[in-house]
C-alpha cells in the first residue's frame, strides 16, 4: 500500500535529518572557526595559513585571567550545583518537600537564563531589593553601599547565577535517572541495613545514579564555562570571561580582529574541553578515594546537619530565583523608588505603556522564531521516536552523544564558525538562519522531554489498532498522537521556552537584523534603566510561561469528556 510505503519513507528519513541538524551545524561551525584561527578566511583576505591570530591572541592583556575566570566559575558552579542536588536528594527523596519541589521544576527550568540573571542582579545589587529590605534597620545603610554585585572580581555573582539555573536542570535530569537506577529499591535495602538516609543515598544510590547524570553534568559544565548572556549580566567586566571577550572581538569594527576572534573561539573550545577533562579526572580521583569509604560500614556521616544544610541551600537557591523575579515585577511598575524604601513610592503602569510600542517588533520576532523552531524540532523528534517504535529497539548510545552535541560544544565556538561559513556561502543572515540556529538547541531538549513518555507507551495500543486493520498513519495519527498529546505539548512548551531564552544564536546568526526580547534584555541589563530592563526580562519570562499554561490547558480541554486521558487518571 502506498500510504504504508510513504510512512516508512518519512519515518526512515526523519531520524537522519535529526542527526544532521544536530551534528552538521556544530561540525561545520567548529570547522568554520578553525580555519580563520589559522589565517584562512578568503573573504577577509586571509589566504594563507599562519599563526598570527594566535600570536595576537596571546598578547591580549588579561587573557590568562579571562581563561582562569571562565574555568573557575564553570567548574565551581557545576560542583556546587551537583553537591546541592546530591545532598538534597539524599536527605529529602520521596518526602513531601521533594514532591513539592518536583512540581516547580519544569516551570523553573522554563525561566530564561537572562531573566533569572537579571532578577538576581536586581535583587542582590547594592541598591537592590535585598539591600532595601534590610536597610536601614539591619544594616544602617542610608545610601546604597559600595560592594560589587554583580560584576565582582572573583566571579561569585556569576557562580551564584549559574548555580541558580543549574540546580533545577540537574534535579530534573535526576528524576528520570533515579527511576532508571532503581533508587527506591537501593534505598530500601540500605536503610534496612541500618544506614541513615543521606548515607544510604551516597553509598547505595550515587554509584548507580552518577553514570546516568554524567552527560547532563558535562552539558552543565560546558554551559557554565562558555555562557555569554549570564556572564554579561552577572560576570565581571575587566576582565570578563573568555566567551564574552570573544563575542566582543567578533563584533569589533576592525574586521581583521575576526581572525583573533576565531582563535579565541577555538581557545574557548579547548578551555571547555580542559574543564571536562579536569572534571573527569576528579571523577577518577573521587572514585579511587571512596572505594574504601563504601565498604567501611559507617552508617552515617553527619546526616542531620548535612540535611539541614541541603534544606537551607535548596530553599535559598529557589528563593533567590523567585524573589529575584518578584523584584522584577516591582521594578517594572516602579515610579519613584528611592533607597532604602522597600516598596516603590508610586507604582505606575506608565513604564509598561511607554515600552509597549517598542516591544511589538521584538515580541513578534521572538514568537515567530520560537514557534517555527519548535515546530521543526517536534516534527523531527516525533519522526525519530516513531522510527524507534518501528525498529522496536531503542537508539544506540552514540546517538545519545549526538543528541548532547549542541549542549557540549561551546556555542560561541561553533556559532561563530557558522557565521563565517554563512558569509563564505553567501547566505544572508536573517530570520531563516536564526530559526535554524535555534532549532539546533531546541531539538535536544524536545527529544529528552518526550523520549521517556514515548518509550513507555503500552505497545498493546498500537497492536490493538493494527489488529483492527489500521495502517501505520492511522495508528500514529489516530492512536499514538492522541494518547501522547499531553507529553508532546509539554515537550513543545519546553522547546519553546528554550528558544525564547536563546541569546547568542540570535545575535550571531541574525547579524543584528533579528531583534528578540532576549537580545534586548541582555543589552539593556548593562545600561542604567532598571525599569525598562525589568519589563523586558518579565516579557521574556511571560512568553514561555504562557507556553506552559497552554501545554497544561490544551489536553485538559481536548479531553474534557475523556476521563481516561486527564491527568490524575490511571
Amino acid at each position: 500500500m502506498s500510504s504504508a510505503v510513504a510512512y516508512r519513507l518519512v519515518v526512515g528519513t526523519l531520524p537522519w535529518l535529526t542527526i544532521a541538524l544536530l551534528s552538521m551545524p556544530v561540525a561545520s561551525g567548529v570547522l568554520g572557526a578553525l580555519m580563520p584561527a589559522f589565517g584562512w578566511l578568503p573573504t577577509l583576505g586571509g589566504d594563507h595559513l599562519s599563526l598570527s591570530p594566535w600570536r595576537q591572541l596571546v598578547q591580549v592583556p588579561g587573557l590568562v585571567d579571562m581563561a582562569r575566570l571562565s574555568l573557575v566559575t564553570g567548574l565551581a558552579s557545576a560542583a556546587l550545583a551537583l553537591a546541592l542536588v546530591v545532598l538534597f536528594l539524599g536527605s529529602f527523596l520521596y518526602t513531601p518537600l521533594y514532591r513539592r519541589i518536583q512540581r516547580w521544576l519544569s516551570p523553573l527550568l522554563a525561566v530564561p537564563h537572562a531573566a533569572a540573571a537579571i532578577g538576581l542582579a536586581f535583587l542582590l545589587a547594592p541598591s537592590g531589593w535585598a539591600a532595601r529590605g534590610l536597610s536601614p534597620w539591619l544594616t544602617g545603610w542610608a545610601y546604597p553601599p559600595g560592594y560589587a554585585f554583580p560584576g565582582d572580581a572573583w566571579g561569585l555573582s556569576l557562580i551564584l547565577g549559574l548555580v541558580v539555573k543549574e540546580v533545577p536542570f540537574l534535579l530534573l535530569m535526576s528524576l528520570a535517572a533515579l527511576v532508571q537506577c532503581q533508587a527506591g529499591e537501593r534505598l530500601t535495602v540500605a536503610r534496612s541495613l541500618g544506614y541513615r538516609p543521606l548515607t544510604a543515598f551516597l553509598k547505595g544510590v550515587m554509584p548507580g545514579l552518577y553514570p546516568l547524570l554524567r552527560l547532563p553534568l558535562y552539558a552543565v559544565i560546558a554551559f557554565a564555562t562558555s555562557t555569554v548572556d549570564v556572564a554579561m549580566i552577572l560576570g565581571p567586566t575587566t576582565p570578563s570571561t573568555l566567551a564574552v571577550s570573544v563575542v566582543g572581538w567578533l563584533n569589533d569594527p576592525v574586521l581583521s580582529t575576526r581572525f583573533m576572534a576565531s582563535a579565541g573561539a577555538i581557545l574557548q573550545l579547548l578551555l571547555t574541553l580542559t574543564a571536562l577533562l579536569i572534571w573527569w579526572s576528579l571523577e577518577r580521583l573521587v572514585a579511587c578515594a571512596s572505594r574504601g569509604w563504601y565498604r567501611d560500614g559507617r552508617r552515617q556521616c553527619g546526616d542531620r546537619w548535612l540535611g539541614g544544610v541541603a534544606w537551607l541551600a535548596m530553599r535559598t537557591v529557589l528563593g533567590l530565583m523567585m524573589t529575584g523575579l518578584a523584584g522584577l515585577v516591582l521594578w517594572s511598575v516602579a515610579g519613584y523608588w528611592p533607597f532604602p524604601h522597600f516598596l516603590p513610592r508610586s507604582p505606575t503602569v506608565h513604564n509598561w505603556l511607554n515600552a509597549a510600542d517598542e516591544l511589538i517588533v521584538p515580541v513578534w520576532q521572538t514568537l515567530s522564531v520560537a514557534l517555527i523552531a519548535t515546530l521543526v524540532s517536534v516534527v523531527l523528534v516525533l519522526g525519530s521516536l516513531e522510527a524507534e517504535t518501528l525498529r522496536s529497539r531503542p537508539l544506540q548510545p552514540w546517538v545519545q552523544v549526538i543528541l548532547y552535541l549542541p549542549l557540549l560544544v561551546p556555542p560561541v565556538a561553533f556559532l561563530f564558525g557558522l557565521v563565517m561559513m554563512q558569509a563564505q556561502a553567501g547566505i544572508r543572515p536573517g530570520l531563516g538562519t536564526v530559526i535554524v540556529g535555534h532549532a539546533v538547541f531546541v531539538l535536544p531538549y524536545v527529544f529528552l522531554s518526550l523520549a521517556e513518555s514515548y518509550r513507555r507507551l503500552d505497545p498493546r495500543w498500537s497492536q490493538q489498532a493494527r489488529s483492527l486493520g489500521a495502517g501505520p498513519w492511522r495508528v500514529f495519527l489516530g492512536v499514538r498522537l492522541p494518547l501522547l498529546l499531553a507529553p508532546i505539548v509539554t515537550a513543545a512548551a519546553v522547546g519553546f521556552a528554550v528558544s525564547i531564552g536563546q541569546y547568542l544564536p540570535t545575535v550571531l546568526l541574525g547579524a543584528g537584523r533579528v531583534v528578540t526580547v532576549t537580545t534586548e534584555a541582555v543589552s539593556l541589563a548593562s545600561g542604567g534603566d532598571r525599569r525598562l530592563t525589568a519589563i523586558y526580562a518579565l516579557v521574556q519570562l511571560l512568553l514561555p510561561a504562557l507556553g506552559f499554561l497552554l501545554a497544561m490547558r490544551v489536553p485538559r480541554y481536548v479531553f474534557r469528556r475523556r476521563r481516561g486521558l486527564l491527568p490524575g487518571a490511571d
Partner: protein
Amino acid sequence: MASLILDDLVIEQGQQRLLSLDTTIAPGEVLTIMGPSGVGKSTLLAFIAGFLSPAFRARGRVQLDEKRIDMLPAEQRHVGLLFQDPLLFPHLDVEGNLAFGMVREGSRQQRRARIHEALRSVGLETFAKRDPATLSGGQKARVALLRVLLSQPRAILLDEPFSKLDAGLRDEIRHWVFERVRHYRLPTLMVTHDEADARAAGGRIITLDDGCRVTS
C-alpha cells in the same frame, strides 16, 4: 469461513526452542493453549497476529482463508486480537471505538446503524456517546469484543481475556464470547492458564511444557 492453519510453527529465542506447533483450527472451533507463564503462549499469539518481537525467531507458515498471512503486515491479516485489558481507546467514545475497526463499506448512516445494532445486542444501546473510562469491567469487555467483531476478522486470538473479570462476570462473558465466535464461525485460538476457561471453550486443549508442545 475458513480454517486457521498453523503449519510447522517453531518459535525460538536465541539458541533455545521455545515452542513448536502444527495444527489446524476449524471454523467456529476454539483451540485452547495452556501452560505456565513464560513458556511462550503470548509469543505464539504475537507471531500469528504479526507483532513478534525481534528477540524471537520464528519458522513455519500461517494460513488463513487459503492465504498465507505470516508474510503480511499485521494490519492486513484480518486476525482479531483480544487482550486481558479491554484497551478501549480513551480518546474516543464507545461509538468511536466500535467504528475504529469497522470496514469502510456502506454509508455513514449504515455504519452507525450497525454499531447501534451491535450495542443493542448486548443491552448497551444508550452507551454510544459514553466515555469508555466510565464503563464497568463487564461493559468494557463486551464493547471490546464488539469492536473486534465489527472489524470482520477471519480468525480471533484471545490472550487470557477473562482473567481480569470478577468471578461472577467471567462465566457470563465467557459464554457470550464463545457463542459469538461459534455464531460467526471464526477459528479461535485462546491462550489461558485458567482451566475453567478451557472447559467452557469446549474445544481441543494443547498444553505446552517447557520447550515443546504436547498434543491434546
